[in-house]
């Protein structure tokens, strides 16, 4: 199984862009509008790593934190994978090392205290047709299986969502205090000890025509139904004659989601980043292409 992906982002009405993303696609890294070529030994084979970090604007220096997390995650993920060929270990190494880098930055400069970001790193493996991920914070990771209900794949690390695990801390809060923080993050990559993260090491199999969505919470301007409708719209039309058509459709869906966020015109619209991955049975596409060629 092969996959295509597309990514786009807007700043919304924030003063800064604090969402950062990167894609490591075999031997190429796409990051901040540039491509970087990886050396052969370190490049991924038949795998794609999609990473998103949403810097916490309220804590200051969110963009620095997000950029550091993306860059160091990639660096240490690749180094660990080269050593161990273990996706789970590499995910952990990427996350923990990025976190340690932040610890160091904060220790050097107290202005940076509290800076951090959410993190989603998703690995697509084309041989097993599986996805693996690590996630910290409240960014969105959804699976849209063809013809089935979408489902959220990652845990959402906010106080209300994790209230069971945080029962001890919450018991000290008044109802009003809890209401005030219920949507606030309870875990982020911010240089402090990472106690709460969501790591998928077994992998989930993805079928042909399924979509995987990664997005920063700026996309929550749209309802889940609206997002589903947008993704399904392109899903129904996935009988592409060739790969380029599929690429176009995935790209179009990403663009539509971003446009819908802009069209909603929400005051104070947050930075929004959308990354969409879709898998396809490459054999089918080749047959289609051959048939098409034969027909001509």
């Amino acid at each position, binding site marked *: 199984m092969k996959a295509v992906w597309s990514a786009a982002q807007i700043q919304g009405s924030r003063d800064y*862009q604090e969402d950062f993303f990167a894609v490591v696609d075999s031997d190429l890294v796409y990051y901040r509008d540039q491509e970087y070529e*990886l050396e052969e030994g370190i490049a991924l084979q038949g795998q794609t790593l999609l990473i998103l970090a949403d810097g916490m604007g309220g804590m200051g220096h969110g963009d620095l934190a997000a950029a550091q997390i993306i860059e160091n995650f990639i660096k240490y993920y690749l180094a660990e994978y080269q050593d161990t060929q273990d996706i789970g270990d590499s995910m952990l190494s990427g996350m923990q090392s990025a976190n340690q880098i932040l610890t160091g930055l904060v220790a050097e400069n107290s202005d940076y205290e509290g800076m951090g970001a959410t993190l989603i790193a998703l690995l697509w493996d084309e041989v097993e047709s599986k996805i693996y991920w690590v996630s910290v914070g409240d960014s969105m990771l959804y699976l849209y299986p063809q013809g089935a209900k979408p489902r959220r794949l990652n845990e959402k690390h906010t106080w209300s969502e994790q209230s069971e695990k945080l029962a001890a801390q919450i018991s000290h809060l008044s109802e009003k205090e809890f209401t005030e923080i219920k949507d606030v993050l309870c875990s982020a990559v911010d240089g402090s000890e990472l106690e709460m993260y969501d790591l998928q090491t077994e992998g989930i199999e993805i079928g042909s025509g399924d979509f995987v969505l990664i997005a920063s919470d700026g996309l929550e301007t749209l309802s889940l139904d609206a997002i589903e409708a947008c993704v399904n719209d392109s899903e129904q039309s996935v009988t592409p004659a060739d790969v380029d058509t599929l690429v176009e459709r995935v790209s179009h869906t990403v663009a539509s989601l971003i446009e819908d966020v802009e069209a909603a015109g929400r005051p104070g619209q947050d930075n929004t980043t959308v990354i969409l991955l879709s898998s396809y049975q490459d054999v089918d596409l080749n047959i289609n292409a051959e048939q098409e060629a034969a027909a001509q």
Partner: protein
Amino acid sequence: MSRIGDDDKSATRIIRSDPTRLVRKSKDKKPDQENATVKINPASTGNSSNALSPAEEATKKLDPAVQKKIEATGRRDQPEFMKTGDKTKVFKPSSDSGSEEDVKENETPVVGWLVIVDGPGKGTALEFSFGLQTIGRDSGQSISLDFGDEEISREAHATLEYDPRERKVYLSKGANLVYLNSERVGQGAEIGLKWGDVIELGATKLRFVSFCSPDFCWTDGDG
């Protein structure tokens, strides 16, 4: 994704990058590098979520975070993953935890805190350590109260000193008026502080919170 408007309030620009690429397809198919739309919007300061570690104190959690200016990220130098040969320590899930950790000691271990309970900077905790601690507006002061209270002297409005033998923090008046629990601190006087005492400098009220105490001090043999 580019940073713009670092320097002033400036306009918000919407930048869109839209690289689409086929996974594992030959490199000849390059993505659209950039599809930048430019828009001029009135600048607005958003207030996004404050991340809180569950271990932090409840009061700290609920403070509204200060939106800060960023200067360090307009950079376009080589991203970390392209750098090689540096000696940054790597987290290895396989290695025994802690075995390769740098063991560093903080040279200025915390002795106590002053928490601003009233006035500019309200909600902020200021840590202090051993030695004579000068309190003033200047950034070079041991305890810098640069939150906008102009009534505070630049240097040595007051001083604190921890005495490890007595295990007590003492407050002295400096260049300006100082009140402790609403009572005047006289020139030359030195007053031992108790947990929860409120120190008043200008329009700012600070609550004293001790860490070192009769049952704990950094000078205790720690083995």
